[in-house]
């Protein structure tokens, strides 16, 4: 897909740009940051291997119909709450989360519920918090951020309910 290629180009372009700035600051700066980045990479890759290669199995054993059945348009705030819990519990990468959202939408899920689901999943899907955020960032910050994010799927659902479907 060309969008993915574009993002890769942007990503490596940014790396080259900040790398060049580091290079201009002098060799020691460049070497130090290369070593720092390389060590981070070596430390993180095994975790990501487990996460990416393992999440397929977790996703395969979660029955998607169960998740989508609870998100109907008449489910109201209870449906939103269910959606938020389901979003937090959804394992796997972006394909899984968005696919469930798409299935929910197609099988008659309500817009506020599906929005709450996607946003909850994006903000604090349990597996991603553990696999991606904890390895990269200070744990205290990660839990703090997740806790602070809790109200926002509900806020988004409220906005969606107030504005109505476009």
């Amino acid at each position, binding site marked *: 897909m060309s969008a993915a290629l574009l993002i890769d180009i942007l990503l490596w372009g940014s790396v080259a740009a900040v790398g060049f700035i580091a290079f201009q600051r002098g060799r020691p700066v460049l070497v130090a940051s290369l070593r720092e980045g390389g060590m981070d990479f070596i430390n993180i890759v095994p975790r990501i291997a487990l996460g990416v*290669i393992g999440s397929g*199995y977790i996703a395969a054993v979660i029955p998607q119909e169960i998740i989508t059945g609870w998100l109907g348009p008449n489910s109201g705030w209870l449906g939103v709450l269910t959606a938020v819990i389901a979003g937090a519990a959804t394992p796997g990468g972006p394909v899984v989360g968005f696919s469930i959202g798409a299935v929910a939408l197609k099988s008659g899920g309500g817009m506020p519920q599906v929005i709450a689901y996607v946003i909850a999943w*994006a903000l604090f899907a349990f597996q991603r918090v553990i696999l991606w955020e904890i390895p990269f960032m200070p744990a205290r910050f990660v839990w703090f951020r997740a806790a602070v*994010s809790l*109200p*926002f799927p509900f806020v988004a659902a409220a906005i969606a309910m107030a504005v109505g479907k476009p």
Partner: protein
Amino acid sequence: MSDQPLKDSAPADDAADGEPRPGHIRKPIGWSMIMIAVLVAVSAGLVYRRDGIEGVLEILIHDFWLFGGIVPRVLAGCLLGAFIAEILPHDKVSRSLGPESGLKGLLIGTAFGAILPGGPFTAYPVASALLAVGADFGATIAMVVSWTLIGYGRAVAWELPIMGTDFTLWRIVISLPLPVLAGALGRFVYVRMYPKNISP
């Protein structure tokens, strides 16, 4: 927010510059990894019982390719984070993204998260780097939430093709105010949880 500097926050002077970058990441495989490993093993066992060895292999091969595609981006993300931590001047970052940066800091964090290329492998190392060079929790939360909800990376690569354009645009419009709100809430809670901040 007032200009009155808290004594302990943002030591923007010479003295602070000598300290090494606060440690992060380097910790051995912890309980969270063990938990996930167990979960994966149990799930793989269930898949084996349901679909046999072909089912297990099919998922393994598919995810292995996925992993292969991600690894270079992980490297790019780690390098980006390391370079940014190295070249960003501490005093400037703590002025524009620190605890005293006000709404402007939250907006800068939000804008930064929205334009940051790449996936979690970029956003999280960069967030960690920002924290290390003087950004506060509020601005960093705004950045992470903004990257998650209104960043174009995930939306273009995954959400648009799977969920469709209507839903994606609608969802992003609704999400626009959330990063600033989350950052503001984060700051509000942080100041009350850790009053008279503790040395970093």
